[in-house]
C-alpha cells in the first residue's frame, strides 16, 4: 500500500464537454479540455467529435453526453477537518496569531471525502472562532494528500497548498465565550477580557497597537522576536490578508472602522450573516465578504431574517411613502403570514435535536444562533447587486455526509433568493479563489490553471444535477457515475 503512494503518476487526460462553464461567468459549448501534469494545458471551443454515448472511448478520454463541465468548486470558508480534530485553537491566550491551522487540522477527516463527492476540490480552512485571534488559516486541495489513517484510500487526504492563507480574527461573542470577570470565580487564565463584544474589539486594538510599537522597538533592536506580532505586522503591511468574522450588522461596521483605524490593506469579512444591511458601506470601502451558510429550511432555521416577500418590498419600495407598510401586530396583513417561523426556545430545541453538525462545532455556531437575527439566504444576491465582491462558503456543511447542505446547494439557494445562476457559479469558483488568494491557480477552466474539474450530470445549479467525475490536480479523485 505504501509503495503505491510514492510514485505519483498523473496520466494525461482529455475531457469533452457539451457545455463548459469557465468559472468566470462565460459558457462554451462543445469544448475540449486537455490536462497535462496536473495542469490544464488547453481549452478549445466548438470542436466536433464523433463520440456517442455507447461508443468505446480511448483511454484517458472522458465524454459524458449532456454533462456540464465546471472548474472544481472552491469553498472559501470551511471548517473541514477543524471540528473533527478536537480543539484546534488554544485558549491559553486570545492572541495566538502564529498558530497555523494547517498543523493541527485533521487532514484525513471524512469531511474531505464528502467535499470531493460534492464537487469541492479546494477549500479555505478557517480557524475556529473561540479566540479573538484564531491564527493562520490554510488553503488546501481536498484530495491528493497521503492519509495518516490506516483505513483511508491512498491520496484521499487533503493537501496543504498555502499554510498561511490569512490571519483570522473573530468579532462578536464567540471569542468571549468561557471568559469571566475576576470576581466570584477561581482565578485561572479565563479571568480575562474579553467578556463582551466591546472587549473583543479592545483586544484587537490592543494587539495591533502592540504590533505597531513592536515594529518600532524591533527597528531599534529593543525587542525580542515575537511570532504572533510578526504575523500582525504582515497583516498591517498587506503581505497577509485579514479574515474577520463578523455576523451582526454592527460587527461588520466595527470591522470597517478597524480597517480605517489601522489602514489594513487586505480585509475580508467572513460569515457576514447581516452584512447585507451594511452593503453600501462595504461597497464604498471595497471590502469583500465570504458569506456563510444561512439555511432556509425549517429544520435548520438559522435564517430568521426578512422573507422573500419582505425583500421584494425592499428591492422595489413603493412609490408612495409608507403605503405598503403594515403596523406591527397586524397579523392578517403580515407579508409572511404563511411562513412558519421557529424562534426562541423551540429553535434551540430543534437545532439541538435535529442537526448533529451543531454539536461538533466549538465556537463557530455558538454565535450563529445568537447573532445575525437578520440573516437571509438572499445575502449573496443583495451584496452582489450593491457591488460588493462576494463569495459563498459552506462552513461545516461537509462534515456531514448529507449533500443537501453542500456548497453547490448553497449556491442554488442563493439563486432561489435572487442571484443569477452565472454569478452563483462565479461565487463558488473564480471569485472564491480570488478571495482565498489563489486567483491564478484555481477556480477557472483556462490554460495554466490547476486541473481541478467537475463533470456534472446537468447544469450544476439545477437541484437534480450531481457530480459524476471529479478531478483534482489532473487526477480522477472521484468517479460517481
Amino acid at each position: 500500500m505504501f509503495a503505491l503512494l510514492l510514485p505519483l503518476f498523473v496520466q494525461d487526460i482529455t475531457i469533452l464537454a457539451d457545455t463548459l462553464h469557465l468559472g468566470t461567468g462565460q459558457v462554451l459549448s462543445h469544448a475540449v479540455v486537455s490536462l497535462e501534469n496536473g495542469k490544464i494545458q488547453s481549452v478549445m471551443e466548438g470542436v466536433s467529435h464523433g463520440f456517442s454515448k455507447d461508443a468505446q472511448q480511448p483511454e484517458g478520454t472522458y465524454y459524458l453526453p449532456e454533462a456540464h463541465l465546471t472548474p472544481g468548486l472552491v469553498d472559501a470558508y470551511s471548517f473541514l477537518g477543524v471540528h473533527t480534530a478536537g480543539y484546534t485553537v488554544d485558549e491559553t491566550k486570545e492572541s495566538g496569531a502564529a498558530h497555523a491551522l494547517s498543523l493541527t487540522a485533521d487532514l484525513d477527516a471524512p469531511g474531505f471525502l464528502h467535499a470531493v463527492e460534492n464537487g469541492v476540490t479546494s477549500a479555505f480552512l478557517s480557524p475556529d472562532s473561540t479566540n479573538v485571534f484564531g491564527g493562520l488559516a490554510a488553503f488546501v486541495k481536498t484530495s491528493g494528500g497521503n492519509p495518516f489513517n490506516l483505513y483511508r484510500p491512498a491520496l484521499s487526504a487533503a493537501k496543504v497548498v498555502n499554510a498561511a492563507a490569512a490571519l483570522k480574527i473573530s468579532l462578536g461573542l464567540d471569542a468571549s465565550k468561557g471568559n469571566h470577570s475576576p470576581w466570584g470565580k477561581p482565578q485561572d487564565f479565563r479571568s480575562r477580557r474579553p467578556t463582551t463584544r466591546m472587549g473583543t474589539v479592545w483586544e484587537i486594538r490592543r494587539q495591533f497597537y502592540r504590533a505597531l510599537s513592536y515594529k518600532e522597538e524591533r527597528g531599534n533592536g529593543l525587542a525580542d522576536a515575537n511570532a504572533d506580532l510578526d504575523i500582525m505586522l504582515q497583516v498591517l503591511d498587506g503581505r497577509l490578508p485579514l479574515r474577520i468574522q463578523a455576523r451582526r450588522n454592527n460587527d461588520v461596521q466595527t470591522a470597517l472602522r478597524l480597517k480605517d483605524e489601522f489602514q489594513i490593506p487586505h480585509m475580508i469579512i467572513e460569515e457576514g450573516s447581516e452584512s447585507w444591511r451594511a452593503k453600501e458601506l462595504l461597497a464604498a470601502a471595497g471590502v469583500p465578504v465570504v458569506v456563510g451558510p444561512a439555511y432556509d429550511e425549517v429544520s435548520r432555521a438559522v435564517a430568521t431574517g426578512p422573507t422573500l416577500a419582505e425583500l421584494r418590498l425592499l428591492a422595489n419600495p413603493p412609490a408612495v411613502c409608507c403605503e405598503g407598510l403594515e403596523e406591527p401586530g397586524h397579523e392578517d396583513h403580515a407579508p409572511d403570514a404563511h411562513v412558519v417561523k421557529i424562534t426562541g426556545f423551540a429553535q434551540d430545541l430543534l437545532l439541538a435535536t435535529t442537526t448533529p453538525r451543531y454539536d461538533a462545532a466549538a465556537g463557530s455556531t455558538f454565535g450563529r444562533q445568537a447573532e445575525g437575527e437578520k440573516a437571509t439566504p438572499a445575502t449573496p444576491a443583495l451584496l452582489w447587486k450593491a457591488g460588493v465582491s462576494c463569495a459563498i462558503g459552506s462552513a461545516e456543511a461537509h462534515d456531514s455526509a448529507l449533500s443537501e447542505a453542500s456548497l453547490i446547494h448553497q449556491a442554488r439557494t442563493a439563486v432561489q433568493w435572487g442571484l443569477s445562476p452565472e454569478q452563483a457559479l462565479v461565487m463558488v469558483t473564480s471569485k472564491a479563489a480570488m478571495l482565498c488568494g489563489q486567483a491564478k491557480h484555481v477556480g477557472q477552466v483556462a490554460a495554466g490553471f490547476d486541473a481541478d474539474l467537475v463533470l456534472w450530470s446537468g447544469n450544476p445549479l439545477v437541484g437534480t444535477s450531481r457530480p459524476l467525475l471529479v478531478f483534482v490536480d489532473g487526477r480522477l479523485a472521484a468517479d460517481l457515475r
Partner: protein
Amino acid sequence: MLLSLLLLPAAIFLQDAPRPSPWLLRPTAIIQPDGTLLEGHEVLIQGDRIVKVGVDLELPDGTRIAELSGVLSPGFVDAFAFLGPREDYRPVTSSLRTADARSLEAKDLDEDRLSVGVTSFHLMPRPTNVLSGWGSLWGSGQSEARVKQSRASLSLLPDRVADRRLGPDSLPGALEILQKELPVIPKSTHFLNFIDTGEALQGWRSLQDDHAHHFVAMDGIFDFGGALANQLVGLPTAFSFLDARTAETWRRLKKANIQFAFGTAQGSPLTLRLAAMKLSRATKNPAFAMQSITTHAAALVGVSGIGVIAPGAYADLVLWSGHPLDATSRLKATMVSGMTVYRANPLEEK
C-alpha cells in the same frame, strides 16, 4: 516437575552474599525473541549475567548444574509503566526524574510483575505535562543496583496536558511551548513522544526538531499509523482503544513494517503477555509478538542486555511449561539478575 523446581539455583537464599560460583541451566528448550527454539542448549550464568549459551559448554571449576523441565524465555520488558504521582505545577517539568520517586521497598507490584514474567520495567512520568521528566529502567524486585536513567517524556496528548489554570489547553498551545523549550534541551536527549492523534504527529513534524525520539501511540493509532511506516512504536496494553478492528489495525501496522513495543502504561503487568498473545494471534506471527515485549521493548527504552538470552546480557530468565505465548503455558519460575526471585506455588504446578 517438583524435582526440577527444587534443583533451581538456591541463590535466592543467599541474596546478600557474593556469588562467585557459576550455574549451568539445562532447560528442555530455549525460546529466543526472534522465534527460534533451541533444543538441548545450555545457559551458563555467573553473577548477574549470562556468560555463554550453546551446546556442550566448557564448564569452569565449581559450576553447579540445574536440570530444568520447561521452556526458558528471556524475561519480558515493560516498555513504559507510568509512575503513580504526578507533578502538575507547570506544563514543563523536564528536570523531574522517576528514579527519585519510587520507593526501593515497593515490592508489592514487583511480585505481580514476576508472577507474569516481567523482569524489567520502564518507569515513566505520567504524560500529563508537555515535558514531564525523565524515565528510569528497573529490574523487577531489584534494589537500585540496576536503576538506569532512560528516556525523557514528551507529551502531545491534548486532553491530558490540558490545564485550565495555566494552559496549554490544546494541541497548538502545547506545540508553542515545545517551540520555545526544545532548543534549550540537550541534544543527547532521547524522547518518548506520547501522542494520540494524527494532528499531534503532524504538529510535531512541523517543529522540525532533531532530538532523537520514538512515538508512543496512546490511542487511535488507526488514525495515524499510516504515517509511522518502518518505525518502532510504543503501544499501551491497557486497551482503551480496543475495538472490533484492533486485530485488523495491528495487521495493517505490521504490513507497514511498524515494530511494536508494548508498555502497560497504567495497566496491570498481566496485560503485557496478554497483549503479546493477542498480537501473535492477530498477525499469526509469534516471533513478532515476542519481540514486542522483549527486544523491541528494550530498544524503545534504549537499554541493551535485557530481553535476550545472549552472552553479556542480564540473567533475566523465565521458565515456562510451554511456549510463553501459548495461553495454556504456565510460568514456573522467574530469575532476575541471576537470582530466582519468584516461583509458582509448587502445589499449583501439579
